[in-house]
């Protein structure tokens, strides 16, 4: 059987836990011996893991890079050792020759899907948006912000009035939302909330409720990831939309690897997963049930 090393960023969110679970499941399905390594959010640990995989002589490497830059040297080493590398869910800045393919979604695109939804939904009415950013400096935070800003750039009626980091966590999402509400006249000035992930949105929804407003109605809520809990909120009418980031990146990756190793089929350099938009119309209750058991 094949041995494949998988360097995961960490387990910082439910989404990532789901990705890990699904990767392990997919590997098991295919009889692959998966060497899993958790980098605890540190790039240096990921590089160490990759180099250890190379020293160990694995057949292929999957890596979910914590950040886009800084992979050249280690990818070159892998190439010299003739070990194919597949990137999961995030891209790197390196030369495209250095990895076999990348499976993932386009983070900027995700942001713009969310932005477009908002533009369509408010339909020309004035709308003041507050933004909960991800961890300062992380690539989803940067790209999802960029995509959203691009999408609303054409709509003069939509303005981001406050933007602060919520560190991708519920607790910070709630705390920061509370301060937004205080700062914006008890929330009466706020028309919509855009959160870089669902967890922050869930926290913020609680803050909105505690301030005596109705999330989903008084303040529109749009976020990204499509984790189960946001569907619950949507089912309750407290969230309006989310953009899916599928945690099953490993399936396509393993398929591409198999094709490459069996008969040398070179996959395209970027296998993009769909960034599907879910709204309250998409039967959120059913979606919730479907995702519940995936280890989110």
């Amino acid at each position, binding site marked *: 059987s094949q041995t494949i090393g998988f360097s995961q960023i960490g387990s910082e969110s439910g989404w990532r836990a789901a990705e890990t679970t699904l990767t392990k499941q997919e590997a098991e399905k295919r009889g692959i011996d998966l060497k899993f390594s958790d980098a605890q959010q540190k790039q*240096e640990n990921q590089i160490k893991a990759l180099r250890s995989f190379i020293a160990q002589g694995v057949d292929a490497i999957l890596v979910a890079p914590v950040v886009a830059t800084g992979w050249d040297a280690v990818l070159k080493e892998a190439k010299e050792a003739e070990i194919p590398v597949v990137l999961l869910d995030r891209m790197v800045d390196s030369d495209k020759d250095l990895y076999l393919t990348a499976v993932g979604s386009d983070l900027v695109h995700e942001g713009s899907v969310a932005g477009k939804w908002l533009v369509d939904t408010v339909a020309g009415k004035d709308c003041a948006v507050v933004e909960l950013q991800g961890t300062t400096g992380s690539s989803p935070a940067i790209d999802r912000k960029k995509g959203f800003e691009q999408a609303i750039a054409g709509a003069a009626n939509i303005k981001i009035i406050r933007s602060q980091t919520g560190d991708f966590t519920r607790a910070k999402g709630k705390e920061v939302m509370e301060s937004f509400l205080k700062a914006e006249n008890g929330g009466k000035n706020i028309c919509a909330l855009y959160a870089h992930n669902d967890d922050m949105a869930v926290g913020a929804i609680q803050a909105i409720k505690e301030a005596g407003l109705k999330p989903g109605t008084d303040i529109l809520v749009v976020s990204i990831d499509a984790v189960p809990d946001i569907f619950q909120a949507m089912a309750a009418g407290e969230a309006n939309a989310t953009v899916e980031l599928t945690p099953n990146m490993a399936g396509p990756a393993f398929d591409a690897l198999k094709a490459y190793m069996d008969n040398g089929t070179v996959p395209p350099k970027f296998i993009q997963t769909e960034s599907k938009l879910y709204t309250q119309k998409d039967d959120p209750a059913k979606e919730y049930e479907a995702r519940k058991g995936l280890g989110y």
Partner: protein
Amino acid sequence: MNPRLLPLAVTVLIFVVAYAVCYAQFPAMLSTRVIGNLLTDNAFLGIAAVGMTFVIISGGIDLSVGSVIAFTGVFITVMLRDTSLHPLAVFAILLGLTTLFGAAMGMIIHVLRMPPFIVTLAGMFLARGLAYILSVDSVPITHPFYEWLQSLYWLLPGKGRLTLIGGLMLLVFAFGILLAHRTRFGANVFALGGGVQTARLMGVPVARTTVAIYALSGFLAGLSGIVFSLYTSAGYSLAAVGVELDAIAAVVIGGTLLTGGSGFVAGTLIGVLIMGLIQTYIIFDGTLSSWWTKIVIGALLLVFIMLQKGLLSLADRRRSLRASGNT
């Protein structure tokens, strides 16, 4: 043997035994590749840990090193991107900056008599904050000089590599060992760790030494940042979070007392290697989930510290029994 060297000997012994255990399980662990990796992958940690050793021996602590490493990377990339300076000139400016930064913390600690923990904690916030302000994006470094530096390595038999940064770490350790154990400055550092008041009464230049210690730590953190930027050829403001804790752990595993006054720079090298060994072992194993990884790292840390304590007290008992046999 001089009993003062005992902790060092015990640490080395533990490392050798641990390596043997790993080898028994994964024979590939003894390849030159893994050994080369141990040096290269931990180069930045090792260099930072040398500075940390001096700080800890003097009875202080420096929580800012991780942030300084991140700042360094961002600073270098931004300078290389926005100016036409040669990387070496950028390095020089940067090392000057981080040395000054360390010296400033040392000044505050000494002049205002504030605890190092807190001053360097503020330094940690400040350095990372400055990195954010310079650039939140991660920026790649694409400079021919960088590529040339990265291509410098010595191929060991068995495809292992002794890279430039791995070698640099060994050099820094050699320098640190001489500085700590064979200079008057080094003796003064130990003296501060024994008690600032007493050291002052004994004529140790407390102010100068304190500032120099933190300046040294700042300098080495900057150097470590350069190494980190060579390692990743990028600058990123979120890089190297928590490196200070790894460095502290390495220093302590290396037999240096956190209370100050006693320790070994050479021990720190072993401490860094032990930490690297733990990680390599976990990756080679490859079956641990994210959470078990954390638990196992914690447990192994505990095991190492307990082994060390146990062996030391055993040796102590043996020694005192032997002494009684003589009288």
